[in-house]
């Protein structure tokens, strides 16, 4: 059940970029580039691809309920924003937890969270953490240590397949995670065990914390490497929704589907190109720099600058 099929997926993507931009300007910094690269993928997932039930957590995010333990009945995970666990519903595992602001913006845009939920972002004692934790909206497991999400998803998917559940396990991950050995361990395991109810979208933005991946540890022909592990791999333009739909429909029996969404780290905000290759976290060195970026990107996104001041 989609809550928001009254919006086009293009509109959802635009809404994600706008929300992340507004928040970044109002808070003097943020993971802005991730919104540029991820907007279409997340809009596609939440607006079209995922089969999810109604949220089970309140639209206004709850405070942190304490860490999970055998003696803490108040602990919860952000999976509630993806709806209940039931055989027919999909799960979505977000592996790069630093995309949290983009995820929260997507959940708001599709009506799964309150319009003002970002007021809780990075507030002490809250659950809407800067790096998504498993209690943060949309986060189902603990993934901030990169490359563990895919393996957990594989375990979930194997179990669901064993139980005969029709729901799929979707994973959103980043290309930097292919530098971790665990990702390749998991591809081998999924291929060997024929775990074909996994759908992965990878944000191939070729960026990482130190800068361009080509200057840190280039992964060469990633599509060929992934395909050589015996999984289905589709490499597409990550901003082309038609290509994404076709790729998502192209799963093969007995194999997980890995979609490499080749993206631009400044898609929709060309002004960010000036900062290339330091795009991982955008902050401002001076008021002038901030004003210049605000005016330029607001114009690109069609945002009234007065809206930024209405924080």
């Amino acid at each position, binding site marked *: 059940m989609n809550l928001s099929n009254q919006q086009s997926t293009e509109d959802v993507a635009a809404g994600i970029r706008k929300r992340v931009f507004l928040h970044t300007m109002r808070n003097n910094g943020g993971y802005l580039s991730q919104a540029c690269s991820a907007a279409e993928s997340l809009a596609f997932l939440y607006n079209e691809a995922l089969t999810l039930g109604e949220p089970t957590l309140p639209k206004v995010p709850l405070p942190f309920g304490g860490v999970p*333990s055998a003696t803490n009945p108040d602990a919860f995970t952000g999976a509630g924003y993806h709806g209940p666990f039931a055989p027919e519903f999909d799960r979505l595992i977000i592996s790069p937890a630093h995309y949290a602001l983009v995820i929260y913006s997507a959940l708001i845009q599709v009506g799964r969270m309150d319009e003002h939920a970002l007021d809780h972002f990075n507030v002490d004692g809250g659950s809407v953490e800067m790096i998504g934790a498993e209690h943060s909206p949309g986060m189902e497991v603990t993934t901030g240590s990169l490359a563990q999400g895919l393996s957990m998803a594989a375990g979930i998917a194997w179990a669901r397949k064993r139980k005969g559940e029709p729901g799929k396990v979707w994973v959103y991950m980043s290309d930097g995670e292919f530098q971790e050995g665990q990702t390749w361990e998991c591809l081998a395991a999924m291929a060997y065990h024929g775990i074909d109810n996994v759908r992965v979208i990878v944000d191939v933005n070729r960026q990482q914390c130190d800068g361009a991946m080509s200057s840190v540890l280039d992964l060469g022909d990633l599509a060929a490497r992934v395909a050589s592990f015996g999984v289905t791999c589709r490499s597409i333009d990550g901003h082309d929704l038609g290509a994404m739909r076709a790729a998502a429909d192209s799963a093969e029996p007995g194999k997980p589907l890995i979609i490499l969404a080749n993206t631009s780290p400044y898609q929709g905000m060309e002004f960010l190109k000036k900062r290339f290759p330091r795009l991982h976290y955008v902050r401002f060195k001076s008021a002038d720099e901030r004003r210049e970026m605000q005016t330029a990107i607001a114009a690109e996104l069609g945002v009234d600058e007065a809206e930024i001041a209405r924080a």
Partner: protein
Amino acid sequence: MVEIVNRPYAKAFETFATARPDILCLSADLTSSCEVDGFRDRHPDQFLSLGMAEQNMLSFAGGLAMQGFRPFLHTFSVFLYRRPYDQLINSIAYSNRQVRLMGFLPGITTPGGITHQAIEDISVMRAIPNMTILECGDATEVETVLEVADSIDGPVYARVLRGEVPRLFSTPFEFNKLRTLSEGDDVLVVTSGVCTEEALRAAEPLKARGIGVHHLHVSTLKPFDREGLIKAARGKKGVVTLENHTINGGLGSLVAEILAEEGLGIKLRRLGLQDTFAHGASKPYLMKKYGLDASALVSAIGQLLGKDLDIGDAELEAVRIDTVHSAQKAEAL
């Protein structure tokens, strides 16, 4: 003579798991080394081979546990926490997943040297919130640890013994309860794992010299039977711990913490690896070399009591474990 049980885990796991369809047996290329090869061959539907890829195996197990399966992971102790420590924390421990880590060849029970000897596993695991730590000391505990591990709401790490294992105890593994193997007034001896059998070798010679030994065997290291320890320690002239592990962070450390917190002011000697790595050799050789044996225990007790006990190796090597069973009966009363 003491009964020697051949491959107690193999039979116990098969009986245990086949009665519980939600149990999965996971293995990382050490299937026969962990005595689950027969289970794999006879129950392939409950067996998952994940290869030499422990990082993936631990995270994968976290996902299985989320879906209501109870994965039992089988590999050598050392491979369950050193390479995949981050996965253990983030994919299992933080979320309090019901994943059971069955660690074989703990400490110096393997001739594999540094790469294979888990000598700081208990120390590492004790530092992890939500973790439960169990250690088997004989065949009976190997046979009955599975039910205990399965009853825990959260992750469990268990040190398991394989191959030919002596049966020292006639009662099953009891969670978080110290076993009293003897009662005496002079010293408290606290042992775990294979060191318990070793300490039992010294029981008769010490008794013959009039030394009153109160001997406790520990099979649950976290949580810990604090009250049982305090009760046994009160009034003793000294306490000795003996463990198949470094003295830092394991049994010796946790006993030290409790003695200090209670202000008991009793002298403590911690026997085990004295802040050193070991190397590859036979178990008896390593236990002798690193002071994990009966002889080391006798020396420590002599030092604590200020007595030369004059107990030679020949006397200690005469295994008189048959006396244990009477101590067990006393406990059962």
